[in-house]
């Protein structure tokens, strides 16, 4: 555990992630919620993977299923109402759902760290910050109380909290929002996970604090070489830190590509529209903001047609009849849209049919 | 042999509060103290006075009572010892009388010392009591459980205003009785141990007594006759079928004895109409619209089937009676025995005759007045059963009844500001039980004199709840006070009783006995309605 002495922790160089085997793979995941109003098909065949040292950004409208996907990676969905109806999640090639409770616990917090959206409510208000950081250390690494405390202080220092020793005995409410989120990051990092899943970790924070967290993550990523899945709907954040981006819509990934590629030329109309909606602090100020008309659908059944079709300006007959598969154009830029030739080709080849 | 039978467990569902009977007249307290403190003479199970700490009962015949009935002289048995080993002397008796007659002490038995002029110790063993008036029955002081002898040495500093502050003495009096107090938790439990200086060497057979209090009568009965945790339970006011079922288990039995208690109606002779305001239920407020008519009250009495009341609520603990003075036998009148057999037709006829006609709603009325009664009593399941039964019986003769029950602590508490006390009688009829101590009814019968009517003027004090007033009756009471011969006294008392019955001011219902539950293994106890129930505890023993 060389974390203390500041030596680089990298288990793998972050330089060329593409060459390595993925640590976390989500394969055609399907999740259904049983609600009083009937079943909601929240996730419909989501597949992606991350390699060590890689940062995958996941964007998408509210309700598109980002959180549900991430939670099911750790089997954290409340069940009922959640029900996994298909697909698999593999950590280092092992299927998460077939793990026993013990292995699953080791996975949670041990191998995969999780940072949640709302730092205000994600920490238990009645336990000290120190206790909450020590908990996984003692459970997963079997540290003694003393060791765990020492390590917790190091972690706090690492996420940039001044006088960490003293702050271990503070309660979450004594921390500001940004500091709390840093504590969450510290907890996620505590057991040197190989994967960190961050579900909108900065959405609730100020720009200045957000900038601090982003810096922290950039730094950590290079030091520890962990794979990171970063969920957000702020494309600005993605632009700054991600290697690859996946765009989700209505429980599916509609586009996935290296970050530069997607900002240079989005291929799915939803991704394009999303990019257009955000104003910028620099450059030309548009007369009106572009909006994506309409609302995302609530899926009572798995989508038979393109889920974005009702809101899409380019939709044509096929869009309303058949759901396009996610297809790669050979450069690692995938999109699911009938306007893309590779999609049509893939559908005809019969592969990737959902 | 003393102490050979171990412990006897007694349950009183009203717990003992204090062991000084002079500071609390409550039956439970008096009886709790009676294991320790003893009088000079007491009544046995037949009501006969028996010498206790004296050689014999003083009478005019044996010279113990002076010819002019102005004094009585008691002679203590020699060699009596207090439980601390000191001698019992006449001075103790003198002190006891002083103690109770001290105006500032709040003595609750002061009525026993009525008309006492002085108490002197003639010598160590001779006590002479002098009265201010001739006393045909001079057995008030030092007779019966209410008036035992206290040890002068123990209570010397507790006279007058200081009496309540002597907690140690009041909770652990030194006495001459078979037991001494070992532990006392007020309103909870008393533990007694055998008195080492008790005058009869082989008694008591039980080395200790546990007197537990609290709860209710049914569960007390259950602890004796069903679980066997206790040996004796007092005052079983319980529906007879429950007792019968318990008795069937064969662990214990119900025992009873009859004294002078009578459950009766006291009938309001004055008008309780709320519209009268302050004059309500006073003589000034005028007579009752219909209850002053003896025909009405007689009809009410005739309509009641007392046998049913006994069967439903009393069983072995009650007998039908037509007198307010049913005992001792000598005093029991037979003039009113018509009431023993119910006669609904007769009652109806009587009311018809008096001009009360049945209205459309089945209620009789006359001149716009309805035969509608408010019937109050204290809260107690047997009484509420009786109320319901009588309501129905009266319904059959066209009398409408509204029932009301009032918590005993209010009903019998004389708070002059409460409208619900039995003295105020803001109702048409009320039902409760009364009796008198000992065997002489003089004081008891004096209750119904005109001067005893409760009213705002005397702060509602007085025993004449029916507001019955007859000069003839008052005169007869006077005569009784001057009569010494027992047969003559009985005759007069019966006449008084009959006058009350005829006027309808009192409608007697049931002659109530004392009932107790006792384990089958207890021997040597005779149920005594005239004195403390535990009067003979020295001779109790357990069957082998």
């Amino acid at each position, binding site marked *: 555990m060389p974390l203390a002495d500041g030596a680089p922790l990298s288990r793998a160089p972050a330089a060329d992630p593409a060459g390595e085997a993925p640590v976390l793979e989500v394969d055609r995941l399907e999740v259904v919620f049983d609600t009083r109003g009937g079943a909601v098909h929240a996730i419909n065949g989501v597949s992606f993977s991350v390699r060590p040292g890689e940062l995958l950004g996941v964007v998408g409208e509210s309700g598109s299923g980002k959180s549900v996907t991430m939670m099911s990676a750790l089997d954290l969905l409340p069940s009922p109402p959640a029900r996994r109806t298909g697909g698999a999640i593999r950590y280092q090639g092992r299927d998460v759902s077939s793990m026993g409770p013990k292995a699953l616990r080791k996975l949670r917090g041990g191998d995969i760290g999780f940072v949640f959206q709302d730092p205000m409510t994600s920490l238990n208000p009645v336990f000290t910050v120190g206790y909450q950081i020590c908990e996984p250390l003692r459970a997963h690494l079997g540290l003694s109380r003393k060791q765990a405390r020492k390590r917790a202080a190091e972690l706090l220092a690492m996420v940039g909290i001044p006088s960490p020793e003293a702050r271990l005995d503070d309660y979450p409410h004594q921390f500001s929002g940004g500091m709390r989120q840093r504590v969450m990051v510290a907890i996620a990092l505590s057991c040197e996970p190989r994967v960190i899943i961050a579900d909108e970790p900065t959405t609730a924070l100020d720009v200045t604090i957000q900038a601090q967290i982003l810096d922290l993550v950039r730094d950590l990523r290079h030091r520890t070489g962990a794979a990171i899945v970063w969920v957000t709907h702020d494309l600005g954040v993605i632009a700054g830190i991600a290697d690859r981006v996946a765009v989700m819509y209505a429980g599916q990934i509609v586009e996935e590509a290296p970050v530069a590629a997607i900002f240079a030329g989005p291929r799915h109309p939803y991704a394009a529209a999303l990019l257009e909606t955000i104003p910028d602090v620099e450059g030309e100020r548009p007369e009106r903001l572009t909006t994506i008309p309409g609302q995302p659908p609530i899926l009572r059944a798995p989508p038979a047609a393109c889920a974005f079709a009702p809101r899409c300006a380019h939709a044509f007959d096929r869009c309303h009849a058949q759901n396009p598969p996610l297809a790669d154009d050979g450069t690692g830029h995938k999109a699911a849209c009938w306007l893309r030739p590779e999609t049509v080709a893939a559908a005809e080849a019969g592969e990737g049919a959902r | 042999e003393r102490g050979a039978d171990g412990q006897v467990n007694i349950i009183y569902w009203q717990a003992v509060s204090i062991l000084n009977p002079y500071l609390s007249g409550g039956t439970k307290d008096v009886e709790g103290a009676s294991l320790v403190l003893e009088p000079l003479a007491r009544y046995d199970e037949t009501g006969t006075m028996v010498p206790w700490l004296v050689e014999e009962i003083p009478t005019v015949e044996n010279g113990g009572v002076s010819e002019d009935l102005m004094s009585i002289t008691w002679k203590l048995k020699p060699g009596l010892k207090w439980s601390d080993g000191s001698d019992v002397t006449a001075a103790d008796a003198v002190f006891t009388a002083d103690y109770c007659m001290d105006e500032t002490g709040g003595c609750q038995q002061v009525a026993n010392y009525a008309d006492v002029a002085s108490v002197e110790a003639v010598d160590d063993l001779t006590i002479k009591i002098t009265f201010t008036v001739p006393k045909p029955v001079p057995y008030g002081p030092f007779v019966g459980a209410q008036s035992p002898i206290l040890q002068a040495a123990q209570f010397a500093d507790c006279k007058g205003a200081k009496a309540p502050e002597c907690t140690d003495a009041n909770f652990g009096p030194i006495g001459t009785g078979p037991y001494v107090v070992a532990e006392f938790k007020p309103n909870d439990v008393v533990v007694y141990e055998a008195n080492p200086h008790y005058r009869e060497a082989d008694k008591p057979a039980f080395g200790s007594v546990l007197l537990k209090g609290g709860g209710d009568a049914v569960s007390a009965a259950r602890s004796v006759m069903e679980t066997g945790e206790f040996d004796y339970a007092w005052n079983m006011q319980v*529906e007879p079928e429950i007792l019968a079922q318990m008795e069937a288990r064969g662990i214990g039995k119900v025992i009873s004895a009859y004294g002078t208690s009578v459950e009766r109606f006291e009938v309001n002779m004055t008008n309780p109409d709320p519209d009268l305001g302050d004059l309500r239920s006073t003589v000034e407020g005028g007579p009752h619209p219909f209850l002053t008519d003896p025909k009405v009250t007689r009809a009410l009495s005739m309509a009641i089937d007392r046998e049913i009341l006994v069967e439903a609520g009393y069983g072995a603990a009650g007998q039908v009676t037509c007198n307010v003075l049913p005992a001792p036998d000598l005093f029991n009148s037979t003039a009113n025995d018509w009431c023993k057999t119910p006669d609904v037709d007769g009652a109806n006829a009587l009311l018809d005759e008096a001009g009360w006609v049945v209205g459309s709603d089945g209620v009789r009325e006359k001149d716009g007045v309805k035969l509608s009664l408010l019937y109050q009593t204290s809260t107690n399941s047997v009484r509420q059963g009786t109320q319901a039964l009588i309501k129905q019986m009266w319904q059959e003769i066209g009398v409408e009844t509204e029932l009301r029950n009032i918590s005993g602590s209010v009903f019998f508490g004389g708070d002059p500001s409460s409208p*619900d006390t039995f003295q105020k009688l803001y109702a048409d009829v009320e039902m409760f039980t009364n009796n008198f101590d000992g065997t002489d009814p003089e004081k008891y019968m004096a209750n119904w004199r005109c001067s005893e009517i409760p009213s705002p003027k005397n702060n509602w004090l007085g025993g004449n709840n029916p507001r019955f007033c007859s000069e003839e009756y008052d005169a007869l009471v006077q005569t009784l006070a001057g009569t010494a011969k027992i047969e003559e006294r009985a005759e007069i008392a019966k006449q008084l009783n009959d006058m009350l019955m005829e006027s309808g001011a009192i409608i007697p219902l049931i002659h109530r006995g004392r009932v107790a539950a006792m384990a089958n293994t207890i021997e040597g106890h005779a149920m005594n309605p005239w004195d403390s129930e535990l009067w003979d505890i020295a001779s109790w023993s357990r069957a082998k």
Partner: protein
Amino acid sequence: MTDAAAVRPDADAAAAADAAAAKRRHSSPWRDVWAQFSSHRGALAGAAVFAFMLLVVLVGPFIHDVDPQKLDIRAKNQFMSWEHPLGTDNLGRDMLAQVMAGGQVSLAVGVTAMLLSVLLGTAIGVTAGFSRRLDGPMMRLTDLFLALPLLPLLLVIIMLFRDTLRQAFGPESGIFILIVFVIGITSWMQTARIVRGDVLALKEREFVLAARSVGAPGRRIITRHILPNVLSPIMVSATLGVANAIITESALSFLGLGFPSDFPTWGRLLYDGANFMTLTPDRVIWPGLAISLTVLSVNYIGDGLRDALDPRIRGR
């Protein structure tokens, strides 16, 4: 404005299928409430049981027309028979008739006393929670009522009011009013405390601020914004209140405060029957069952109502 207009039809296009249903669903808010209520299985069962009991209690006496006060000492302590379906008590009164007659009184007392106590508790809790100035005094008042010795207080109340009420309303309704009053004013404290806590939290919520910003006066804020949102704890208090009132009523009769002694109520029947438990068990089983069923059904109705009145749950 051009594309704002374009937004609208599109925005709703997605929910188009929904909208028709929505229109139907929102035709009447009360129908909604009923629809939600009736989809709550427990609530429906509770309502059915409660309705059944009401029916038995109100209509039963016409079918089994025995006078509950009629004594027949010869037929006392009987077990179930055709003549006396639930047996008789120790004075030979018919138990079925008594249970039915008692039910009328007990249900009436239970429900009205509960309403009074809940109203009082809510009023005091809301006042205390809403007004900073009145909070202290109101909570001290609550302490006072919690500390007051109940029995003497009751005795004072009887002494002061019984005869007046008896004259004004007749013996039975007078006593009824008195009992409801007494139970009401001695059992509101718990409700008040709970409601106050909720109101304290609620008044900091943004929609209350919003109401203030449009100029709504305090009383309207309370009635429109605070009260509907503290319904849930009030419902719980109400459920427990019914049981409490039914039992308390029987205790009151021992102070001479209750109904006349020949007037059956469930609590009274249970109390009187307790000593006869081993002799005639039906004397306790039936009134006990009646009380428990009432409380249970009221509890489930309360659950259902709470859900039904909450549009968030209703929508789901």
